[in-house]
């Protein structure tokens, strides 16, 4: 520290240097405490279901994740819906993105805007209007797996279109022309050049769609009938004591997300290293 400073200035500088760091650490703790609690509780051996408190360490929750069969069937239903919704929304959304970027048609700009509507509308509005639609169409008695799936595909679609469209828009048109110039017909051009280059965008869109579907509560709850997905199950049991296995599921989901993020980052670094060589 420079000797010419007054004590007041010195203190000001010390605070400036340390306050930002301390603030940053506090914000990070704030973000991670809930996750930490979930992980911790997955090892909890509770005395009572009604008191949410760490009473002792056990591996029982991990060894018997399906102690409550209703929870496991809800998880498995959520995964089934998530995978199906992801598959269908990704295929449809990718085709829509191609149409919006590659083809000049009447109403293209309107379509480009309309894609944003489901993202911008409140979920409660989408959910209740879907319910109204299903009831009006005579499906009131058949609400369940399929209506949830239809709803999930609907709201995942916009996110897929926007993600893939961004990737496609950044793709150099010349590459496809170069492929055609080098004797690749339309199909070969798509398989050998376009698809491999757009694939990261499609993969990202699929991951996004799955997490949106797995996570959704409001729209699902309105259109589920008697069917229960994992978020609905958690909501339902929250009032009469959450089984600790819910934390096991939460921890597993968290670990999978972290693994994907770390994997993507490592892959990126590996490629950068290869470029630097």
């Amino acid at each position, binding site marked *: 520290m420079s000797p010419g400073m007054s004590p007041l200035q010195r203190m000001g500088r010390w605070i400036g240097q340390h306050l930002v760091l301390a603030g940053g650490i506090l914000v990070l703790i704030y973000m991670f405490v809930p996750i930490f609690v979930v992980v911790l509780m997955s090892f909890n051996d509770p005395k009572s279901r009604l008191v949410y408190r760490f009473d002792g360490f056990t591996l029982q929750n991990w060894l018997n994740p399906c102690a409550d069969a209703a929870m496991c069937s809800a998880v498995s239903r959520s995964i089934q819906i998530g995978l199906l919704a992801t598959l269908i929304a990704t295929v449809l959304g990718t085709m829509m993105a191609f149409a919006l970027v590659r083809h000049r048609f009447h109403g293209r700009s309107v379509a480009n805007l309309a894609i944003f509507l489901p993202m911008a509308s409140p979920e409660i509005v989408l959910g209740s209007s879907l319910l109204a639609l299903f009831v009006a169409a005579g499906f009131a008695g058949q609400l369940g797996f399929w209506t949830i799936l239809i709803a999930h595909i609907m709201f995942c679609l916009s996110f897929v279109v926007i993600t893939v469209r961004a990737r496609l828009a950044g793709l150099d048109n010349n590459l496809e022309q170069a492929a055609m*110039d*080098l*004797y690749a017909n339309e199909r070969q051009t798509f398989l050998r050049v376009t698809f491999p280059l757009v694939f990261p965008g499609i993969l990202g869109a699929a991951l996004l769609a799955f997490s949106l579907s797995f996570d959704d509560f409001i729209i699902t709850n309105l259109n589920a009938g008697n069917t229960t997905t994992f978020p609905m199950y958690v909501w339902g049991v929250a009032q009469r004591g959450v089984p600790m296995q819910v934390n096991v599921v939460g921890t597993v989901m968290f670990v999978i997300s972290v693994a994907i993020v770390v994997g993507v980052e490592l892959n990126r670094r590996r490629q950068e290293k290869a470029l630097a060589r």
Partner: protein
Amino acid sequence: MSQVAESAETDGSTGAGSAGSGLHLRNLRKEFAAFTAVHDLDLDVPSGSFFALLGPSGCGKTTTLRMVAGLETPTSGSIALGERDITWEKPYRRPVNTVFQNYALFPHLDIYENVAFGLRRRKRKDVEREVDAMLELVELTSQARKKPAQLSGGQQQRVALARAIINRPEVLLLDEPLGALDLKLRRSMQIEIKRIQTEVGLTFVHVTHDQEEAMTMADTVAVMNAGHIEQMGAPAELYENPQTTFVANFLGQSNLIEGTVRGRDGEDVKVDMQGTVVTIPGQRAHVAGNAGDLGWVGIRPEKVLIAEEGQVIDAPGNSIPGGVVTDVSFVGVSTQYLVRMPWGQELTVFEQNTGRRRLFAKGERVDVSWRPEYAFLLDHTQDRAAGRDEDAD
């Protein structure tokens, strides 16, 4: 490399054997919504030649190239390779390959697979041997397993060239292939591409806005302007005997001085140029030549001699008195003067610094002169400034 050269020679001989090969454009026209990019173009590119399409940006040269490649559909007209009409052929069914302006290398494939791409699509055997030979020709053998982004601009350029040449197209199209390189690298790639063209013996059609590049590399240059071909010929012929003001200004620099035709004197045309009668050889006079017609007398700056007032310069009969030096730029190998003539026009003069003649200072009174056989006469209805300052993209 030797293998490539040998196979190229045999290819060349069979190519020459098939009569009427080469690229032929007939009345080729391309209209976009708002404007016509190419106006009824007629062009013949002989087989095995290095042909340059030269013009400012927006003149239609790239559109012409893309129509030959099949990436743009002509509005009317035809494109033929030898006897074969390819006007409506899909790009992947044409024996034509392109080196794109930004190279358009496939970023997800390594150099080897980029070069092998065309061969694999045509299910060629011996891909490995051919790719190895081609990588050797462009001196990239050691880079075979790298991705395009790991290569320098000059190396990427060579990959783009190799990727196209390996298919032995009947015509290789180069779309401003050196535009992204810095000046020094550009000069060395010009020589490199010329060497490869001689070695493989293919027909090259090179599109550029850089007149120096076109003149150094090509056997034949076609100068394009606003969808038309202004003039076509060997580089020296275009430079020495331009037929339009556009060519005179776009290819190098020209002084264009207004004059009135006095009449013909045998082969020559006599022109009253601001009071001095100058003689212009018939094959360099691109006007009707009736007495009383106006015309532009053109002379290249390096053909103009500058001397002290009253001094006899070596070209008798064409001496023009009354000039005043208004600007002197000493370049080293040469000196560039601006000389204000009695009729108010400033002429540009380049003098070689041979040391035999002294430098003139600003404000000195001088006479200028040139040999009659160096001047040319252009149509007065053309814009005197056409093509000036247009080569900067």
